[in-house]
């Protein structure tokens, strides 16, 4: 008898815990009119952008601490914001699944993805470009500072295997291609703007992050890869961008669209924003937000 009692007690506790969890969820979704406690705000997406916003959010949290200091109408609860990596597509998925309030996206959102959102909302924070970058010790910098689209295609499709295939004045050394993973945002942008139908060679180092890609080029004199403009600026001098089709990747050329390999920095959200989320979005778009985006090497939208 005692045994049965203990087991049923045990099960009851489990169910109660489960029910409590559900109840908590319901409460959070129930009334949108009154300003409810928001709990944790989750932001998921491109890790490159995540780093930038982390600094902004740290400043924000340090300055205010609790939500009611941001706006007296907000409840008195500590500000709790988490930024997850995972990539642009993970960001879109998290916003579709509503496991995150905001998605950080460093490419255009496709029509297909837009239809999956209940209510599509996005704000552009800035612009990033993919620069074709090499190591500062690469002799190509003394011979030829520009690559045509045709040369780029031949480089990245693996048709050129050694540097002297590109220019006979260069040494006979193997070209080390560094790319991001094939399904990622950066690769998609590069494929569309430069390669179009032609496949990127399989003989590349697929870096798991933009930081790893840039580190590889900084370490290896024979490496070439598409490095983010922002990350290149963070490592100024250690990695040198080349010009493409005669256009150098500068702020002006990227903003005007003359430099072709660029991508938007977007923040994606689904449906109506709660007041606290709106306050956060306003923060991203504020002068303070723009200043940090610029300080981290990217081009702010304003």
């Amino acid at each position, binding site marked *: 008898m*005692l045994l049965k009692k203990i087991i049923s007690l045990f099960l009851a506790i489990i169910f109660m815990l489960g029910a409590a969890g559900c109840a908590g969820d319901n409460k959070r979704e129930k009334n949108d009119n009154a300003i409810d406690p928001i709990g944790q705000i989750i932001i998921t997406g491109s890790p490159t952008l995540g780093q930038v916003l982390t600094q902004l959010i740290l400043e924000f949290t340090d300055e205010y601490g609790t939500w009611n200091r941001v706006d007296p109408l907000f409840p008195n609860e500590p500000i709790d914001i988490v930024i997850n990596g995972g*990539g642009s597509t993970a960001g879109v998925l998290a916003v579709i699944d509503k496991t995150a309030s905001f998605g950080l996206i460093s490419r255009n959102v496709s029509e297909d993805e837009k239809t999956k959102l209940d209510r599509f909302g996005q704000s552009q924070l800035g612009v990033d470009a993919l620069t074709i970058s090499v190591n500062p010790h690469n002799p190509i910098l003394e011979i030829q500072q520009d690559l045509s689209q045709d040369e780029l295609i031949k480089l990245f499709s693996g048709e050129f295997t050694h540097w002297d295939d590109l220019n006979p004045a260069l040494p006979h050394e193997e*070209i080390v291609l560094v790319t991001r*993973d094939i*399904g990622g945002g950066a690769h998609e942008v590069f494929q569309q703007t430069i390669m179009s139908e032609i496949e990127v060679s399989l003989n590349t180092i697929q870096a798991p992050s933009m930081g790893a890609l840039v580190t*590889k080029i900084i370490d*290896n004199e024979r*490496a070439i890869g598409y490095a983010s403009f922002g990350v290149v600026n963070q490592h100024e001098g250690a990695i040198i961008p080349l010009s493409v089709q005669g256009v150098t990747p500068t702020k002006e050329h990227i903003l005007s669209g003359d430099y072709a390999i660029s991508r938007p920095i977007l923040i994606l959200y689904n449906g109506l924003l709660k007041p606290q989320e709106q306050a956060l979005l306003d923060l991203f778009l504020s002068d303070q937000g723009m200043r940090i985006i610029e300080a981290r090497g990217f081009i702010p939208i304003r």
Partner: protein
Amino acid sequence: MKKYDDLNKFVKHLSRFVSFFVFLILSFIVLYVLIESVPFIRSEFSRSFVSLSWRPLSTPPSFGILPMLLGTLYVAIFASLIAFPVAVGCAGAISSCFTGKTKHMLLGLIDMLAGIPSVVYGLLGFYILVKPLEKTALMATGESILAAIITLALMIVPYMVSAFAKAFERTNENYQMSAKALGVSQWYSLTHLSLAHCKLDLLSGFLVALSKALGETMAVMMVIGNSPLLPKLLGKGITISSLIALEMGSAKLGSLHYHALYTAGMLLLVLLLSINGLVRLIERRAKK
């Protein structure tokens, strides 16, 4: 006494419940991976699974898993082969040359090695192996199968050592007295007694470490280069687990690419489960 009977029963049922729960989790994982890979297996491109070209986003796409499968087996088997003699020597030395506190401390240290997060091994591999390899004339870039094999070998040595040391310990307990009484030297008793008597334990320890090596993701991903090419010792390569870690985050939900990654995961799971089954079989025979 009645009191304890009830308590005994309770603990028995509780442990049954918990082990059933573990079984439930395992079957849920297997089932989930299986369900997620069905759309790919049924698609018209499933034939391309047994090919050499991994082009998940091209038109038409091609999902050749062979480079990853061969890369996984190549790296894991060679790493285990390198680790094996090191681990046998290490376990032998610990079990026969040291006693008491020193032995305990050494075994504790070995266990601690097993607890180091794999990303730390990956970083070590990147700085100690990849960078110096890059400076040699052997290869244009240091990321290589070789770097992955050495990193992995380092990582699995502790698993092998603790398995082997336990086995040697058991033999020692049973035969040490008789061996000493016969005046057998320590070296002879290690080579002719412990090694001979623990053959099956050595095999099962080897297989456990091999399955650990097959599934290792992070450390390998950091040093192998992640190119879907056929594995060559000095060339770049990719393993199934690093492929999944690299591409799962960016594969679009519900796309063939996504389901193909699950199918790759299932392949790895089948590989690991069959090795584990083999280990159980061997252990049962070893006990007889």
